[in-house]
């Protein structure tokens, strides 16, 4: 009770209140270096800000050695409190490889399964979802997205029916590489969707102009794909540069993964970034970026200028 608070406790409370007021909307953390989560606008359920992408990296077929290696990546992801894993029938054997890992590790409570329906996969939406559930070894998916907006007029109503029936929890659409933004904007403005997935990283910021503000306005959660621009961004930085000292001082940035991922997830409209990797050490770097503190708005501008100056 206030009357029982010491002066020190009162100061702490005021300080915490001020900090919360200055944070990007919806960002939750208990104290410095704790794992960050953001609420999904349509339900309020929180989602860790660093997820796991699987494009290229999880397409290993039936190779036992690589299946074991990817299982170790998934194990490390969940050991660090990971949530969202994103895949697609377009990613070859990736859904089977996730299923292999989940079968061996068990399905953790934190799993937020995100898949996609995709025209070339064939079959109706329900058939595609059923096949994917079998490949993952899960009863239902948290999020089902329309891959690259293909046939979205046909797919979205079917997905909404499945959401109403409880077969899936959330409905979304995806784009990548900055493509089809006009159409995505139209869908976000007019359709009832929970998630929109798009490419957003420090060197591709087109979505800041219209799509991210629209997502906030419409209460749509955003998943940022290609956070390292397909790997070329972080590889180029690691080859040429050290992380700037001011970044370390301002938001405890120790690696380029910190720098690039914290830039993305510190945008108020972005819920989650989904870096993909084949290596546990890289996964651990990625997961560290999901911990406080995040860069402030001013620091974000400084980060952009720094990258543009290279």
């Amino acid at each position, binding site marked *: 009770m206030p009357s029982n608070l010491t002066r020190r406790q009162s100061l702490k409370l005021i300080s915490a209140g001020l900090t919360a007021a200055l944070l990007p909307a919806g960002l939750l953390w208990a104290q410095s270096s704790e794992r960050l989560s953001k609420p999904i606008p349509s339900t309020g359920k929180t989602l860790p800000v660093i997820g796991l992408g699987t*494009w*290229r*990296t999880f*397409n*290993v*077929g*039936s*190779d036992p*050695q*690589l299946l074991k290696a990817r299982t170790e990546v998934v194990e490390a992801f969940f050991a660090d409190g990971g949530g969202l894993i994103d895949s697609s029938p*377009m*990613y*070859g*054997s990736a859904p089977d490889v996730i299923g292999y890992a989940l079968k061996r590790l068990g399905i953790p409570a934190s799993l937020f399964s995100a898949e996609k329906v995709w025209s*070339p996969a064939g079959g109706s939406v329900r058939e595609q979802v059923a096949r994917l559930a079998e490949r993952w070894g899960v009863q239902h998916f948290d999020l089902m997205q329309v891959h690259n907006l293909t046939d979205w007029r046909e797919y979205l109503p079917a997905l909404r029916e499945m959401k109403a029936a409880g077969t899936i929890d959330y409905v979304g659409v995806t784009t990548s*590489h*900055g*493509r*089809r933004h006009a159409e995505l904007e139209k869908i976000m403005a007019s359709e009832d969707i929970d998630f929109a997935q798009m490419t957003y990283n420090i060197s591709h910021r*087109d979505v800041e102009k219209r799509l991210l503000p629209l997502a906030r306005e419409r209460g749509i959660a955003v998943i940022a794909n290609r956070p390292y621009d*397909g790997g*070329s961004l972080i590889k180029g930085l690691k080859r040429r540069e050290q992380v700037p000292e001011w970044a370390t001082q301002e938001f405890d940035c120790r690696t380029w993964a910190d720098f690039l991922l914290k830039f993305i997830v510190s945008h108020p409209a972005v819920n989650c970034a989904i870096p993909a990797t*084949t290596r546990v050490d890289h996964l651990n770097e990625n997961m560290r970026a999901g911990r406080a503190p995040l860069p402030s708005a001013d620091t974000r501008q400084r980060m952009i200028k720094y990258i543009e100056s290279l």
Partner: protein
Amino acid sequence: MSDWSSYELQDFIPFTADVYFRLLDRTNETFWPLHLLTLAMGCTALLCALSGRARIALLLIAPLWVFVGVAYFLQRYAELNWAGHYAGWAFIVQAGALVLIALTRYGIERPPRLLNIPSLAGTLIAALGLFGYPWIAPLSGYSPYQAETFGINPAPTAITTFGLILIVLRGTAMWLAAIVPFLWLILAGLTLTALGAPWANALLVTLVATLLAMARKNALEPEAHDKRRPGDDGDHPHP
């Protein structure tokens, strides 16, 4: 930003380099020592081609195209890339085309002229596919288990076949028999480029050299027809 300009080459390759080289590892582990037999068949086919037994040369390599189509593409590569199904069937069709040419003798060089540029180039290219290609990966710092061999892996099979058809075929048959090897070597070269394999350019250079040699052979065709003796066929050793 236009849709296509936003793509990079690696966006079309749905797996990483470690997955590709593990595929080579696994294929070699599974089929060793079949490599010795396929190499022996390739060497025999080259000797047959050079000695005027064109039909035997084509019939020797046709089953290896089926084997690569099924064992490499349909059973393994297609797990990683949906395009593997199409490539597998294309290799089987190529085998059918080689058998058809051998049976009908359509476009078979009679008799082979060994000392012209296309035939010399064909011999060199076939030798590269048989004896040079398996060394490329190990010499580039990759594991010997990732070596690619004629009759087991598609690239050396396509290169060796390019060499053989330069020696034993002419005209339309030569160009038709080159379609599938040509398409695969383009795809393989681009794949290796995206995966950062240092010999990707060597593959594309071999492809261009083969096409130049084929064009040269085409240009020599009228002269060759004039000098051809009536009754020559491709089933007998060159005198």
